[in-house]
């Protein structure tokens, strides 16, 4: 049994315990604060990336009478003492560097005292996670070089000073420092506007704002000087005020409201509920508190988790367990059927109309003495449709080589051109006609979608290929290609998995491979048994879909029926199961 607790099991267990708790009578809304929730516990979430913490608490005794929900708070992240100390040391050193007439011995002593610290921090996990390890290393190296040069090199001094100030900026602020800084900036802004407006208004009247924002160069020099003086004072004043405000806010823990949650029926019955906070910082310890909110929005007193908790990162991401199982199921069935096919068992697959036409199309091009055009979409090799298109190309070019028809492959990407050349060359080799391969028939045109189509359109009208294949990712150009191909009387076979473009291909081409059929095409065309096996594997995937959908739909229907039949408890259980399927299995 794994350590993973599924919410479902928990819910069922909790509910089973409390099944006999009777429904309390509804109470009157009131303005008095409700009774607070109790026994808040906070625990690191198991098997995650180090960003989640699980909270659990006992519901307020007033629940469900007068409670609307619960409000969760967490502490702001604060730096621990060691970090603060390090930050201070760097800051001091920067200040010393900017001091113009400091005796060199003093600077030397300061550098030597702080260098080991900087080195040590460069190797810390904190520095690596917040990406200031490099800056710390650079700063240490620059300081060492400066010391080694005997401290009378001006350039070295500048370089060391710069490296230090870069490091200072790179050390991240804690949320609390951020809040203080924002406070300062806000105070400064208010102070500045208070200085600016009366002077400019006196000068320009109602147009002051426009001139202030857009035509500042029209402000006369003497007013600029005056404003400068006044705003300098305002800035100092603002800083003082902001510091005072920050100090006034500075109780031991500063709280941040995270979210409001409502307990469900099962949770009310169990008398306790839980919530998982996400996206926390794994280098900070947190404190949590939860309050109950009354009907009228009045908040109760808090319950505070007794210890500080830090989220821990684990190797395996448990949230993706279901994804892994489903991936293994699908891939496993594909592999299984490929093995079955290799063992020589005959596999039946149905026919796809478009594919039997490939032979005919290439044959016709040969008879008419015209070329075969193959377009592998307009995306690069990092699109799986392009790769599927290239595999189809290998079959088509093999046919062309056998029939001795000219095959032309313009591409919209350089890498696709490279891959297509390899592919076609291999096909010619397989067909035993390597000498007939002409690399110049596979060429790059332009990356631009409509530049590529402009070229293709002109080329098709001039060269009149007898067969056109469009196999890959297509966008708006699908219809331009298909209509032009139609106007020159070519046989057109298209295959794409772009739902928005399928209608145009379906309407204007002779045959279209729709979505999944397109991916199956290379398996069909190759005729190799192990390739056909993979199609069987895909069918297993569809069976899985069918089973999950049918079970899910039945459960959802049962839930609706339970609601209609006024069975809240059954409905709550069913809802929990469906939530489990939706949120855990299918994510």
């Amino acid at each position, binding site marked *: 049994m794994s350590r993973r607790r599924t919410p479902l099991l928990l819910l069922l267990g909790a509910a089973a315990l409390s099944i006999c708790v009777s429904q309390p009578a509804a109470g009157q809304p009131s303005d008095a604060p409700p009774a607070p929730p109790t026994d808040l516990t906070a625990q690191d979430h198991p098997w995650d990336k180090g960003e989640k913490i699980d909270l659990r608490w006992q519901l307020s005794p007033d629940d469900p009478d007068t409670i609307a929900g619960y409000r969760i708070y967490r502490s702001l992240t604060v730096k621990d003492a060691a970090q603060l100390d390090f930050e201070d040391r760097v800051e001091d050193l920067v200040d010393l560097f900017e001091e113009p007439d400091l005796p060199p011995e003093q600077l030397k002593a300061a550098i030597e005292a702080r260098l080991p610290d900087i080195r040590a921090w460069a190797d810390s996990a904190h520095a690596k996670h917040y990406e200031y390890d490099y800056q710390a290393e650079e700063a240490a190296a620059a300081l060492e070089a400066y010391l080694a040069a005997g401290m009378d090199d001006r350039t070295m001094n500048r370089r060391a000073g710069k490296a230090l100030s870069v490091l200072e900026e790179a050390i991240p602020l804690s949320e609390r420092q951020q809040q203080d800084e924002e406070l300062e900036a806000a105070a400064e802004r208010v102070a500045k506007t208070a200085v600016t407006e009366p002077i400019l208004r006196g000068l320009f009247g109602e147009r002051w704002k426009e001139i202030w924002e857009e035509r500042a160069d029209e402000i006369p020099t003497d007013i600029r000087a005056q404003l400068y003086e006044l705003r300098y004072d305002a800035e100092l004043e603002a800083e003082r005020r902001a510091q005072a405000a920050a100090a006034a806010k500075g109780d031991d823990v500063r709280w941040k409201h995270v979210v409001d949650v409502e307990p469900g029926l099962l949770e009310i019955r169990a008398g306790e509920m839980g919530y998982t906070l996400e996206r926390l910082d794994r280098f900070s310890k947190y404190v949590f508190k939860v309050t109950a909110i009354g009907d009228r929005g009045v908040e109760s007193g808090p319950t505070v988790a007794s210890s500080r908790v830090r989220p821990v990162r684990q190797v395996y991401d448990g949230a993706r367990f279901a994804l892994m199982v489903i991936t293994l199921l699908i891939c496993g069935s594909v592999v299984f059927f490929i093995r079955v096919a290799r063992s020589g068992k005959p596999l039946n697959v149905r026919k796809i109309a478009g594919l039997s036409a490939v032979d005919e199309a290439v044959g016709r091009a040969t008879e008419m003495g015209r070329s075969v055009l193959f377009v592998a979409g307009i995306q690069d090799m990092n699109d799986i449709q392009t790769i599927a298109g290239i595999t189809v190309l290998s079959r088509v070019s093999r046919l062309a080589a056998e029939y001795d028809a000219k095959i032309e492959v313009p591409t919209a990407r350089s890498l696709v051109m490279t891959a297509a050349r390899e592919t076609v060359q291999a096909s010619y080799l397989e067909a035993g006609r390597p000498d007939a391969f002409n690399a110049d028939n596979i060429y790059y045109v332009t990356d631009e979608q409509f530049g590529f189509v402009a070229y293709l359109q002109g080329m098709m009208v001039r060269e009149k290929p007898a067969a056109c294949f469009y196999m890959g990712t297509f966008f708006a150009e699908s219809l331009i290609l298909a209509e032009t191909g139609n106007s020159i009387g070519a046989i057109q076979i298209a295959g794409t998995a772009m739902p928005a473009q399928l209608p145009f291909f379906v309407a204007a081409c002779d045959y279209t491979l729709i979505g999944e059929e397109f991916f199956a095409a290379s398996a069909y065309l190759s005729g190799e048994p192990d390739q056909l096996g993979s199609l069987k*594997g895909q069918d297993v995937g569809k069976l899985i879909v069918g089973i999950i959908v049918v079970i899910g739909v039945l459960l959802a229907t049962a839930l609706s029926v339970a609601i209609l039949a006024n069975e809240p408890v059954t409905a709550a259980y069913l809802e929990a199961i469906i939530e489990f399927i939706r949120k855990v299995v299918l994510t």
Partner: protein
Amino acid sequence: MKRTIPLFITAIGGFVLIAAVFSGYTQSWGEVAAIWFDVLAAIAFILGGGNLMKIHLRKISDRGAGWAYSVVTLIAFLATLIIGLGKIGVNPSEQFPEYGMSGSYREVGGPFWWLYEYAFKPLTATMFAMLAFYVASAAFRAFRAKNLEAMLLLGTAFIILLGRTYAGVWLTSFLAPDGPLSGLRLENVTVTIMKVFNTAGNRAIMIGIALGIASTSLKVLLGVDRSYLGGGEE
């Protein structure tokens, strides 16, 4: 050798990235691989661009049919390339006025921007606009009620086209908006088609595509399908 090593690279690259998804430490590897791909694709421009120049230069030297147009292509290509790569006529960026090359290569008002605004954009936008004509001719030629399937496609398109103009609203305006038959008003029929049939159809297609992609990827990784690797000895 020549084919085994590439097959090995393919399999390792793919399976490592699949496994990476399941650990918090490695979930960003996929993004790094995507950036690497972009870099590789950009380097590949040398191949594509070189091929483009080669083809057109040969056409010019052979005096092949339409060689004059190859001259136009080459001039347009080289001019854009030189102006863009050299950031010709571009001012420095506002943050770093002392660095001459710090400006954006597509600064508004610069020569590269001019090429974009007055050559690239009108040419490509006009190509895009030609679709209006092709849509019309396709409607005339291809939308024929040959069988039930075609009739469904055609009928739906017809209803949507009508329902999205004033004409459609007017045609069924005799049905009371809140009466029992209001669901048959053309604008409501449009909504029902979109919400029910269109949703179901799209879902089936998307699920199928996802399966197709999974199986194609797997075949590539297992080396079942290796046509892209070219020929030569094993």
